[in-house]
């Protein structure tokens, strides 16, 4: 087993995703504790340039796999990463708990026999071993696991760790890896962009979510206006989605998205246990609700008991003033 912590860096359209630098941040910490080398692998079309960024972020070595295809492909990426793991034998492999990371990590772990914990919210070294903490029951409890196989593998929830510091004086050795262009049995034909220019809920730093009290799809407009001013992505509770006020892709909660922002506004959301499950790791929670007895106030850091239709537009105005200063 090599003394190596390997990060599966994720990119889209040749741009490194934020999660990749977050993984480099925690990867450096773990590697430091183990006295191991931090390395990264990046696969895609025209991605060699990303080795520079990963090097500046602390990678000793960057494995680069060039593909002719722009799109992610489970089978091709799995083969390339599995081959690399078998050859480099890292003791820890880190991926993002993103749609790509989860898809790839699950398949790779099954192929190489890694001990995988998904969607981790804390990683640490204890007695020379990786301890992986992750939420279960949609965040109603946690478990801590260790791998009994090698490598230990973890996918890490976005926004859990800060990005690695960039130091342009550091650079990585670039190692080209072979990406076999086998004929895959599942191929991405097209990628459809649904959301606007806002980050996805799972990656957003600020979220404004509306609940049943929004009463109609049109009323989400005031949440979008607030979101535009503070750079927030708009979400919804299950009650709002099931009432047809918002699409399922906007749902936060146990049967929707699990989010981890710095700031979460729950607007007209009572705070059902399933909703809390999806957003309780938010660093700061703000509740706006007419009902002073709404359970959400038990979990919120700040709350306003008042009518959301008057509060939200005023809040938008106030932030606009503040941010113009």
């Amino acid at each position: 087993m090599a003394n190596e912590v390997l990060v599966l860096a994720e990119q889209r359209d040749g741009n490194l995703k934020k999660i990749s630098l977050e993984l480099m941040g925690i990867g450096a910490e773990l590697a430091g504790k183990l006295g191991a080398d931090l390395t990264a692998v990046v696969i895609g079309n025209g991605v060699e340039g990303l080795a520079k960024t990963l090097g500046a972020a602390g990678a000793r070595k960057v494995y680069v796999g060039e593909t002719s295809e722009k799109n992610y492909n489970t089978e091709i990426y799995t083969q390339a990463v599995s081959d690399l793991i078998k050859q480099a034998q890292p003791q820890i492999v880190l991926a993002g708990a993103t749609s790509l990371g989860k898809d790839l990590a699950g398949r790779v772990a099954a192929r190489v026999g890694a001990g995988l914990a998904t969607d981790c919210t804390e990683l640490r070294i204890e007695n020379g071993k990786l301890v992986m903490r992750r939420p279960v029951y949609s965040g109603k409890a946690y478990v801590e696991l260790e791998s009994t196989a090698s490598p230990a593998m973890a996918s890490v929830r976005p926004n859990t760790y800060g990005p690695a510091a960039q130091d342009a004086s550091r650079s990585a050795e670039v190692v080209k890896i072979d990406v076999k262009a086998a004929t895959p049995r599942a191929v991405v034909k097209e990628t459809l962009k649904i959301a606007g220019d806002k980050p996805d809920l799972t990656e957003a730093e600020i979220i404004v979510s509306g609940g049943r009290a929004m009463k109609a799809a049109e009323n989400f407009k005031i949440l979008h206006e607030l979101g535009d001013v503070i750079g927030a992505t708009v979400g919804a509770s299950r009650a709002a989605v099931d009432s047809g006020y918002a699409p399922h892709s906007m749902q936060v909660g146990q049967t929707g998205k699990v989010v981890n922002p710095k700031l979460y506004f729950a607007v007209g959301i009572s705070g059902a246990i399933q909703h809390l499950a999806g957003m309780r790791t938010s660093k700061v929670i703000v509740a706006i609700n007419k009902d002073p007895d709404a359970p959400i106030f038990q979990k919120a850091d700040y709350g306003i008991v008042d009518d959301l239709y008057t509060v939200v537009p005023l809040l938008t105005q106030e932030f606009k003033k503040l941010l113009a200063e």
Partner: protein
Amino acid sequence: MTFPPAASRRESRRRTPERRGAAGRASEAEVKIVVILKQVPDTETKIKVKADGSGIETDGIKYVISPYDEYAIEEGLRMKEKLADDSTVTVVSVGPDRAIEAIRTALAMGADDAIHVNDPGLEGGDSLATARVMAKVIRDHGFDIIFAGKQAIDLDQAQVGSAVAELLDIPQVNVVAKFELAADKTKATVSRRIEGGEEVIEVSLPALLTCEKGLNEPRYASLPGIMKAKKKPVKQVDLAALGLGAAEVGAAGSHVKILKWLPLPERQAGKVLKGMETAAAVKELVRLLREEAKII
């Protein structure tokens, strides 16, 4: 980990197109649809971690079909109904005695038959150990397409689907929100949800798809459905019948070990502004976010 060689894997699929043709039966084009199902605590459940951190208190928990698995069942049933031939929907579940309730519910929704893998030796198995069991029974049963939930809502690992696909050497598409079978039944076009959008994927069959909310609206079991379900065949499989060694399943066959369970740190209720002039409350909230929380 031991995998069977690729050749035997392919053979163990129900039959090749050539063999279908040779069989020459009227039902030669029927599709074997398999749905993977897990019984889990209802989403309303308040989870309480045992004081010694060894697990959760299970008293009084109401168990249901994992919500994402309901989309898998529904999609399997819709596919069968659309095909309108002798295609079958078989539910496969690994779980203790109580899992039969979830299996019966799936049969009441319309699945044809089920396989219930139940053995004390399977306890403590992680996703990979469970996937090994699933893959074995599914391979023995035969399959053309496998539907699963995108994750079970108890441990939320979202690993079993990919691992089963890997062990069966078939492609996977995770988090499917749209599914359409091609007319020749050799492939499907599916949409997979990703951050801020969807990937449209063409996948050849056999394949494993994990289902997302929005794929369909699962039906309720009808009363006649519930009556019929009582008579539908449920094959009980234990470790001996499974043909897997004790070292391949349960805790022994696992690659991760739970060290301990932890309760959630309770969030302290914070500052609630009430009975104030709205404008003053809003100003105060912004000030708190700026100066106290230092977040904006």
